[in-house]
């Protein structure tokens, strides 16, 4: 929990700093929008969390997000080239395709012993290409279908703005189910065991292949759910939606304490990691410093939006560097302490008879 706590403190500090620099940060519309962004990232970051904790990687989820949206647009948009099927056909179909993609990748990885990186890299490109083909290289608009309410509407309206937008609601449900699966079920225990030591898990009778395949299905499935939200949020779909989203999800998971070696991470940590990613993103727009120039005229200094990736990249590096340093200091301290205690009476010793000196 050390990592989660540290990251939570960093998150709170960041929010405070942003609020002080620009009170609009916590204004109704920005706060609501940021929360919605955190939620949509969090949904698929939790999905990839299952894969990462079991020691795998899934690069295809950005493409799955895109394809889900494009399929819903194609099937259910009433304007051409949409086919005009009802949403209760379009959404389940799209989600079904997402699950099948996860299943296919999972089977390739576990049955043919292919490397997850390569399989999901191939999947990423292939699925992206399918989106492009379905969208015929263009954009499919939802018009002002009631579908858009899924992203913009919500429950508990206050002054016209929903206090709990639907994506946030979906996110909370995903967090609940994810926490339960990972931390309270045998499945979750097996995911950690496989990530911690795949061979030992196999020698303990765990059906490693089945559990691993399932993590890819969960990852793709939640990417599908996020895809539905993004489609409603953006209102029109092209093959560009979702590009590089998997990298945001991986970054969120790692910031939140997942290790790409597997076996480590919590849902709570991934949630915090997702929040940090989105708050930085938003903060780059919101952060401002008021000052007066030489003429005494009040000016506002803002961050150059071109720095976005520099800042996000630096934060990720800083987080893992700090974590590693803490790790190394602790390990050194443990060794010193052990050496000191071993200097006294021997630990774990039995009474050894006096050595038969023969030389």
């Amino acid at each position, binding site marked *: 929990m050390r990592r989660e706590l540290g990251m939570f403190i960093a998150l709170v500090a960041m929010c405070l700093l942003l609020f002080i620099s620009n009170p609009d940060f916590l204004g109704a519309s920005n706060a609501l929008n940021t929360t919605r962004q955190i939620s949509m990232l969090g949904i698929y970051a939790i999905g990839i969390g299952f894969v990462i904790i079991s020691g795998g990687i899934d690069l295809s989820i950005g493409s799955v997000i895109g394809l889900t949206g494009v399929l819903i647009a194609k099937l259910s948009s009433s304007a051409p080239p949409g086919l005009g099927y009802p949403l209760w056909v379009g959404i389940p179909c799209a989600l079904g395709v997402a699950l099948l993609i996860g299943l296919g990748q999972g089977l390739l990885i576990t049955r043919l012993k292919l490397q997850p990186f390569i399989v999901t890299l191939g999947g990423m490109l292939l699925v992206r290409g399918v989106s492009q083909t379905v969208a015929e290289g263009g954009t499919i608009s939802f018009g002002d279908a009631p579908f858009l309410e899924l992203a913009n509407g919500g429950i508990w309206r206050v002054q016209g703005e929903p206090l709990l937008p639907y994506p946030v609601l979906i996110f909370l449900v995903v967090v609940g189910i994810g926490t339960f699966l990972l931390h309270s079920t045998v499945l979750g225990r097996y995911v950690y065991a496989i990530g*911690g030591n795949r061979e030992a898990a196999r020698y303990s009778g765990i059906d490693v292949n089945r559990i691993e395949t399932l993590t890819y299905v969960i990852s793709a499935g939640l990417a599908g759910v996020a895809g539905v939200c993004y489609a409603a949020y953006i209102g029109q779909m092209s093959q560009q939606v979702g590009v590089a989203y998997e990298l945001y999800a991986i970054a969120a998971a790692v910031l939140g304490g997942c290790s790409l070696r597997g076996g480590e991470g919590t849902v709570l940590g991934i949630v915090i990691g997702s929040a940090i990613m989105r708050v930085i993103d938003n903060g780059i727009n919101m952060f401002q410093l008021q000052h007066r120039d030489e003429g005494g005229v009040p000016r506002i200094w803002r961050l150059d939006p071109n720095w976005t990736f520099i800042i996000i990249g630096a934060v990720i590096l800083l987080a893992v560097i700090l974590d590693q340093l803490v790790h190394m200091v602790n390990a050194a301290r443990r060794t010193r302490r052990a050496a000191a205690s*071993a200097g006294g009476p021997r630990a774990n010793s039995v009474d050894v008879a006096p050595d038969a000196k023969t030389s």
Partner: protein
Amino acid sequence: MTKGAPWLLAMSGITKRFPGVVALEDVSLELSGGEVLALMGENGAGKSTLMKILGGAEMPDQGRIDLDGNPVVLDSVREAHRLGIALIHQELMLAPNLDIAANIFLGNEAAVGSVGVLRRSALNLAAGALLARVGLARAPTTPVSTLTAGQMQMVEIAKALSKKARIIVMDEPTSSLTGAESEHLFRIIGQLKADGIGIIYISHRMDEVMKLADRITVLRDGRHVGTLDRDQVTSEKIVSMMVGRELKNEYFPPRAAKTPGPPVLEVHGLIVPGTARPVSFTAERGEILGFAGLVGSGRTELMETIFGVTPALSGSMTVAGKPYTPRRPRDAIDCGVYLAPEDRKRHGLVLPMTVAENISLPNIASYGPAGLLNREAERRAAEAEVTRLRTRTPSIFQRVVNLSGGNQQKVVLGKWLAMAPQVLILDEPTRGIDVGAKAEIYRHMAALADQGITILMVSSDMEEILGMSDRVVVMHERMLRGILAREGLTAEGIATLMTGRTGAAA
């Protein structure tokens, strides 16, 4: 050796502590050029730690090392290489995907003038000369993956020679060699001696040591027990120095002569993948059936087949009279056949998980309803096993990675004991474990056998085989060479079968 001249190598007062154990305490060792010094001791005696210090992989906490009478600091593997110290590990450290020449000069390409760009012809020429010196008739461009174990050994020696090594350490060099390959190795060792190279030869095999060594240094429990000239000693004397007689009596629990029981595990004509000959044996209820053999004799592979890790190609098995065809570990576990594997860190434990999580791992699904974790039941089971095996851990919520080897092994045992075993396979149950924990594990094994559990014990430790087994299966080159009864069991009788020599078969 000339009187008064400094030793080629002198290590004195070497002490090394690891968390929880003193690996070496005030150990000394001397070596002169052109000499073979045998370093002997049981597993865990401190041989490999001492050699790691000599090779620059570990720094001693105390002590000094002199080369030719001048003190040196071996603070890195590179520095040890520079000073002419070469280690040849038991598991050879070659890159199988590269060819012989590339392996010989790996990291040392500059020796033949390759700076940045490889000069292949020069590499191959230099490698060819070294291969001639070690008597290996293979082209320098041969991929290492196509060589036999004996040939790889020669490549390792050639690699050491390429670095102008003056001291070569060989760790159990014959453990995976055939008889002819060993003979070849001994001839090469003779040549190296004649060239003035000092050799430290680590081995458990008495006949080799008596044949090769000029002097013998024995370690036990991290201490120097003695150094003797070969002419002064007999094998019996060395063995008694290695094991310590007084200790040995309390080491192995007394076991009543076992009365024949009903067969529990019957193996008929089992063909293990990678072997030619079928294996058949029967293990009785409450029996400890020892499996003796050299490293690579096929014992671990046989156990993995019985446990369903690598399913058998043909043959049949029964457990308690019922047909038993494990295709994966789960099948074995469901029939009460459990394996505590040889490499427990790789196959036995999830190191970052806690003691409780490791103990419950194979059985956790049965604790709670419908796939839910039942932490209370898990805690109870873990507490029970930790108490039963007297595992030293601050709590059952400690991560296993922080425990000592002996306590880690107890966690592996606890994992299976929590599930009422019928057949318990223990592959090298005390490897890398300190003496105190060893004696405890032996007591537990005896108690489990008395409760009627059938134990298959693979061990490379002759004392362990002799001290614990009711009967002994001996394997050599992936074949079952004989099954010996407890009466009249001798180290010599087992060793004869282990090395493939015929004559004394039971």
